[in-house]
């Protein structure tokens, strides 16, 4: 028998029980997770290439100023910076590829 003044906890558990009985709105788990990850890598990839070059060019300017090797420091560091930028992007994309590959593998396993 229910008492006249149900406490807050009882009201909440009743609500939870009601909610559990309701038909489920989203039967599958949201695939929001991949969307979020794609958004992150989308924003990541855009600036990664340039930032490597900026960092290396600043380093090259510093080296030039200290050792007075006028054009060579900035040239060498620029080339290395662009290689590092490519490396950055390739790492991100390889990671994405690996993740998607493992995901599809799991899915096919589940189907079999």
């Amino acid at each position, binding site marked *: 028998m229910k008492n006249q003044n149900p406490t807050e*906890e009882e009201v909440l558990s009743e609500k939870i029980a009601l909610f559990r009985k309701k038909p489920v709105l989203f039967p599958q788990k949201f695939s929001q997770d991949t969307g979020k990850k794609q958004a*992150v890598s989308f924003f990541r990839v855009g600036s990664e290439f340039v*930032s*490597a070059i*900026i*960092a290396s060019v600043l*380093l090259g300017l510093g080296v030039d100023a200290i050792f007075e090797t006028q054009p060579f420091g900035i040239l060498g560091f620029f080339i290395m910076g662009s290689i590092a930028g490519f490396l950055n992007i390739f790492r991100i994309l390889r990671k994405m590829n690996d993740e998607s590959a493992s995901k599809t593998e799991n899915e096919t396993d589940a189907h079999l």
Partner: protein
Amino acid sequence: MHADTQNLSTKASQKIHSPLHQFEIKALMPLHIGKYDVSFTNASVFMVLTVLFILIFFTGALHKKRIIPTKFQLMAEMLYGFVAQQLEETAGKEGKIYFPFVFSLFLFILGANLLGMVPYAYTVTSQIIVTFSLAMLVFVVITCVGILRHGRDFITYFMPSGVPKVLFPLIVPIELISYLSRPVSLSIRLFANMMAGHTMLKVFAIFTVVMGMWGVAPLVLNIVLTVFEIMVAILQAYVFTILTCIYLHDAIHLH
């Protein structure tokens, strides 16, 4: 003639501010220590306001903890749970002890971005020096974590396995530059997104003022852009935190 045109241009600029005017820093309390200018500026005001806002929100939401949460308590708990989940997913179980750092970083950036969306407010994160300081903080913390956890083995982070030793003089500097580019990319991403968004909003606001009756069209666009900007503000705070978590993972596990 020359003075005339100058006069005209200053008049015009007085009537309509340039879209970059909103990023101007004004010293409210001039203060110099030695040769350094450490004045209390309008940017500092909004940083203090951001921190105060976060403090008030969390103390207000959590001062009376209840089993059935109020709306504010629910929001605070959701923020906490969200960041905790992301941290555990990306950095693993060992990353959990760095939760206070990551959470306060997330809250500060989110608060600053959202506070910047209030009209007449100053967007702190649209200054590259602020975002660069935040990124340098992350960089220093992560390097310290890596060195403290692994000691001398941290150097192997710059020597990828499976590469012949002959190539090391070429690979190590590249890895080093790639490591050093992290704070740059973190800071530039946040700064560029916030600054571009706010400049765009201001440009369309100027269109609204100039076009008179036809200004309704840019006004509608501006409303849409405001929603978009709020989304970008939240997303950028999220991206910054996620990247901090990824870097933490790299520092803890060394690849």
